[in-house]
């Protein structure tokens, strides 16, 4: 059998393949390297996929995904299964690292006069929106929202922009930016709850 993105699992790793996420993280907390190997194989494609979608740059995405998996290993002992599923915990680590990388890459801070010079547009956020809205899953998830809420959520979720930054990008008051994020999230909560009930 061919295992893309990795090596042929050893016999004990193969036994671990059926183990739950929580047990793997517990194994990692106990510094069990086989658990880590299985965990990495199980999650590398999701972590890399998220980083690639957010960053649009395979080399940077690779660094971020690698760092996220290493941090999961280092912080496995503080993982609390009561707070969040393993996947959410790991993907949140990866997202936060990707946002840090994006913030570093935004060499020009979103200063008001800079925006004015550009005639109100902001190339980085335009590009960000363009790329994010080409991310198929995200596109579908946000399809039901009014466009201004969709934009606010993409900027906040996929790019880590704060409400104040979104206000400057969209040239709207801070309160309006906060309301768009809040309303968008509230609508998603209702629609996701509806899907779960079905």
């Amino acid at each position, binding site marked *: 059998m061919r295992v893309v993105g990795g090596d042929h699992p050893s016999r004990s790793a193969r036994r671990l393949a059926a183990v739950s996420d929580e047990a793997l993280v517990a194994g990692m907390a106990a510094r069990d390297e086989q658990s880590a190997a299985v965990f990495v194989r199980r999650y590398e494609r999701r972590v890399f996929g998220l980083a690639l979608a957010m960053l649009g740059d395979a080399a940077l995405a690779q660094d971020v995904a690698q760092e996220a998996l290493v941090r999961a290993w280092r912080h496995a002992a503080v993982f609390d299964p009561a707070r969040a599923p393993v996947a959410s915990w790991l993907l949140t680590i990866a997202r936060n690292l990707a946002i840090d990388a994006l913030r570093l890459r935004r060499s020009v801070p979103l200063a008001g006069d800079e925006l004015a010079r550009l005639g109100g547009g902001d190339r980085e956020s335009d590009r960000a929106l363009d790329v994010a809205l080409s991310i198929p899953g995200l596109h579908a998830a946000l399809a039901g929202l009014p466009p201004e809420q969709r934009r606010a959520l993409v900027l906040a979720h996929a790019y880590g922009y704060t*409400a104040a930054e979104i206000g400057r990008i969209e040239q709207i008051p801070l309160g309006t930016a906060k309301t768009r994020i809040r309303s968008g999230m509230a609508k998603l909560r209702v629609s996701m709850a509806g899907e779960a009930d079905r």
Partner: protein
Amino acid sequence: MTADRTAAGGYGCGDAAADLAELALGVLTGEERARAVAHVEVCEACATALTQLGAVADQLLAVHLEADPPPGFERRVLERIGAAGEGASRRGERRRRLRARPVTVATCAAAVVTAVAGFLVGRVWGAPRGAVASAVAPSRSSGLEVAGLRAAGRAVGEVYAHGGPHPWLLVAVDGLPGDSSVTCEVIDEHGRSVVVGSFWLASGRGSWVVSLPPSAGALRSARIAGARGAILASATFRP
């Protein structure tokens, strides 16, 4: 204790309600974040609301497609955490095996994604102001087309095509049999067929980005062929 409405600097449930979505998305910063967190710690109602919004934020993270990391990725991670696992004596063999791997999608994707990013930047630079609005409109107006990938009437993935001067294709396969190499071929509006790349499926799954020749024009369809040229699945953009 709930509804700590006016204590601690006058930050109450109303203020929290305005901040919780940002807190759940991880974009609340500094003092605002500290105030919201302090409130949630003492207010059960707001803590519950935050949990629900946190689940929404988690869902948004979960919608992203998987992608194959570049060759050697897993080995590098495991080496960093000291879990290379199979023993030093086997490392040489592993390295050889990694080197011997055919150029995978991830490698192609790296080059293509760069091209895609360049294309998007170029497009936005040259675009009229209204372009941002159209970029968030549904798929067709943003230049992104989607077609279901089907094998013998069964859904086995999706193909996304993006036009413009540097067109690209994203192929997501889930449900073809086995671990094998496949090729992706597109048919343009004139009926010409172009092979755009070959990729590996792992347990019938895989997702890749590939660039298309600029001359490709509007696509009629895309198809996935097996090692011996047999068509395994196809997606139709326009009949």
